[in-house]
Every structure is written in structure tokens, then in C-alpha cells.
């Protein structure tokens, strides 16, 4: 059951890896603005965090990369009722380092220089599933003129391209924004028509064990405040419908 804690405890946040840097910025801003303790952020694959939460992991809120896992937690009875909401919607992009883009996604993929295309594992990562849907829609999923390699996470899908082993990669817009903030990585993206894939809604839930910590509510309020939303949008996410 919920454990009573001193009010001075920081908020413990579990976050899907792709949202890690965004939540870091939100947390820093939250703490700067309110003078509260900076939330402690643990990132990981959504599935991993889900398993940990079911085994009593000490998290107060969970920002998942999908909707399924928060829903399951809800069914498991581990979340504060009514706390689930969509905090961001991801944007899938096609990325390659360096060169400027023109043309459509289809043209880009059919470029004879494209030998390897990386995606995240569709079975595990929502962005991977989205990439698969796009490829299916444009008829390049079965028997494509290139090899599709799968990263376990978006991060790996990105790395395949970053190391030059894949020419193109389906990744999240937010990643490219982060990457462009890093020195040495210059890149441009080709946005993908959101109708080609199911919306990448990412849900968050407040966990029951956080009941005694009032700071959790304040942090969640901040995240869904206009300032918070603006920061999320700036990171490359569409806002929730």
C-alpha cells in the first residue's frame, strides 16, 4: 500500500527513454520555478518500467511511450483513478544525416543508394510499429529494395544511421531535435504524413503509492500547464488532441 513520506521527498518519475530529456528539462524548470526539490528521473523501456512498477518500484508517476502499459496499470489497480492522460503525441520522421532533403518519403526510400533502413523494433516500440505501418501503406514492407534493421529502441535505430550503417532511419522528431542540440550531428528530416500511421499517443499515470506526496500533483500540474505543454511541443511532439 501507499507509504507515508515526508513532504520534502522528491517526486520520483519513471519515463520512457524517448521522453527522458524532455522530462529532465520540465523537472529542472519546475524546480527552478517552485523552489521544490528536482524530481528524480528514471528512464527505461516502457515494458521494463511497467514490470518494475508491478513489483513495487518506488515511482510516483509513469510517463509511458504508449497507451497500453498505463492502461494495464490502471486495470491492475496501481494508479490513482482518473489520473491517466495523454501528455504528448509523437511524430515519426524519416532521417538521414547531413544532406538536404527534397521529394516524398517514397522517393527517398526508393533511392538506389539506400541499402539499409533502420526502424525501432515494431514489436516493442510504438515508433517501430508506426514505421511498419508507413512501410506497409506505401507497399515497401514486404520485399523492400533495402534491408530493414531493427533497433531495440529508438536510440538504437538512430545509432544505426548515425554510424553510417543505415542510410535512412524512421525515428522520432523529438530525437532529431535532441540530436541537433548535440555538437557534431547535423541533420535534416522528412516529416511523414501522420495519416500513414496510428497516432503515437503517450500516456502518463500517477501511481497510487504517491498519494501522500503532494509535490507529485504539483509536478503533474506543471507538466500539463501551458508552459509545460509549450516545452513538450518544442521538443518535437504534437500536443494531445
Amino acid at each position, binding site marked *: 500500500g501507499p507509504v507515508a513520506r515526508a513532504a520534502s521527498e522528491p517526486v520520483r518519475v519513471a519515463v520512457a527513454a524517448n521522453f527522458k530529456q524532455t522530462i529532465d528539462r520540465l523537472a529542472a524548470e519546475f524546480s527552478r520555478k517552485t523552489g521544490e526539490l528536482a524530481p528524480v528521473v528514471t528512464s527505461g523501456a516502457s515494458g521494463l518500467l511497467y514490470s518494475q512498477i508491478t513489483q513495487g518500484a518506488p515511482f510516483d508517476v509513469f510517463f509511458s511511450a504508449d497507451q497500453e502499459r498505463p492502461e494495464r496499470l490502471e486495470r491492475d489497480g496501481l494508479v490513482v483513478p482518473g489520473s491517466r492522460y495523454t501528455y504528448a503525441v509523437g511524430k515519426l520522421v524519416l532521417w538521414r544525416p547531413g544532406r538536404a532533403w527534397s521529394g516524398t518519403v517514397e522517393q527517398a526510400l526508393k533511392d538506389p543508394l539506400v541499402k539499409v533502413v533502420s526502424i525501432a523494433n515494431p514489436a516493442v516500440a510504438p515508433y517501430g510499429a508506426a514505421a511498419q505501418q508507413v512501410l506497409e501503406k506505401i507497399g515497401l514492407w514486404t520485399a523492400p529494395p533495402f534491408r530493414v534493421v531493427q533497433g531495440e529502441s529508438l536510440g538504437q535505430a538512430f545509432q544505426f544511421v548515425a554510424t553510417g550503417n543505415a542510410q535512412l532511419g524512421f525515428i522520432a522528431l523529438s530525437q532529431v531535435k535532441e540530436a541537433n542540440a548535440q*555538437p557534431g*550531428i547535423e541533420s535534416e528530416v522528412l516529416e511523414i504524413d501522420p495519416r500513414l500511421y496510428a497516432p503515437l499517443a503517450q500516456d502518463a499515470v500517477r501511481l497510487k503509492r504517491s498519494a501522500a506526496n503532494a509535490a507529485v500533483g504539483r509536478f503533474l500540474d506543471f507538466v500539463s500547464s501551458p508552459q509545460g505543454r509549450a516545452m513538450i511541443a518544442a521538443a518535437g511532439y504534437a500536443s494531445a488532441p
Partner: protein
Amino acid sequence: MNAALDLTPLALSLRLSAVTAIILLIIGTPLAWWLAHGRSRFRFLVEALVVLPVVLPPTVLGFYLLQLLGANGPLAWLWALVEVRLVFSFAGLVIGSVIFSLPFVVYPLKGVFEKVPRPQLEAAATLGAGPVDRFFSVAVPASLSGFLAAAVLAFAHTLGEFGVVLMLGGNIPGETQVLSIAIYNHVEQLEYSAAHALSAGLVAFSFMVLAVLHFTNSRRKVAL
């Protein structure tokens, strides 16, 4: 960059590796001795058992350990009773690492233990040394290279391991976030320069420690 070069994960990693290596030597030594010299007919089963954790992917092993040690696991009542929390805590990481590196301690030790000259053990017995005494006064000095190998492998393997640790809650900054996970996170977050810096530091540091260790060891042998 500043946050990246936070040294807490390094300290935590070294502590975890050291504690794990020590515990492994304590557990692994008698186990290896028994495997090498025991009389039971079922040694071969135990020997096979010791390696099993390694055939599973680390995260999967971690997943099972999480179920077993977690709040809703079958042994939860036990942990509650003794008031320790085994997941999302240092203790949990140690348990996971110990299980995961056990064969890398037991196997090399068993190998050298089998080579301890029987006439010397027998001589020690006739000179009044009981089994434990014989073990420490004859077998251990004759097996130093095996202990070194076991300690190095256990330490290094724990330093680099992150699957089990991640699963058991090893990513809470300042609490259970070890270096391997910190590096992994940096790579995942595309913070390559931070990842490179940490990796290079870790590799250089390990190399120095290992080189000194092996150098002293080779000296010792020449001097003997």
C-alpha cells in the same frame, strides 16, 4: 556535460563490483572446492546449475529475479519479515550480480583446485592440518592464479553488466544508477560525447588497475 560526468555512478559501480566480487569469492570458493574434490554423485547437476543464469538474456534473468524478489513475488512475505527491500536497492543489485557472475568465479577456481597436488594435501594432513587448514595453507597458495582470474572476471563482468541491474531497479540516479547504465543512457539519449568520456574513463581506469594487478602478479611469480 556536467551532469554527464557526475561521478556517483562510478563510485556506485565500483562498490557494487567490489562487493559482488568479494561475495562471489566467499560463496564460490567452497562451491568450487566441493565441485573439484567432493564425493557426491550429484556434483555434475550442481555444476550445470551454476552456469544456467548465464544462458538467459540478462534482462530476462533480471525480469525473473524481479518477480521472485519483488513486492508481489512468492517470497515477498520473507523480505517483509526481515524488513529488507531487495529490489530497487543496492542489496538487490548485489544479489542479481552475484547470481549472474557466479560461473565466472566457480569455473576458473574449480579448474585450479583440481590441479592442487594431492601429495601435498596428504602431506599437510599427516602434518596435522585438518581440511580447512589444508585448504588455506596448501590449496589457496597453490591456486592464487585461479583466484586472481576469478576476482578479475567477477569484478569486470559486474562492472559492465547492465541488463540484470537495470531490471532490478538499477537506474535510480544517486541510488542505484551504476556506471554501465549511465553510459547506456547517454548513448540512448544520443549524448555521445558524454558516453565516450565515461567509457574512455572506465576503460582507462580498468586497464590501469588490471595492468597493475597482473604486473604485480607476474613479479610475484618471478620472485617466488
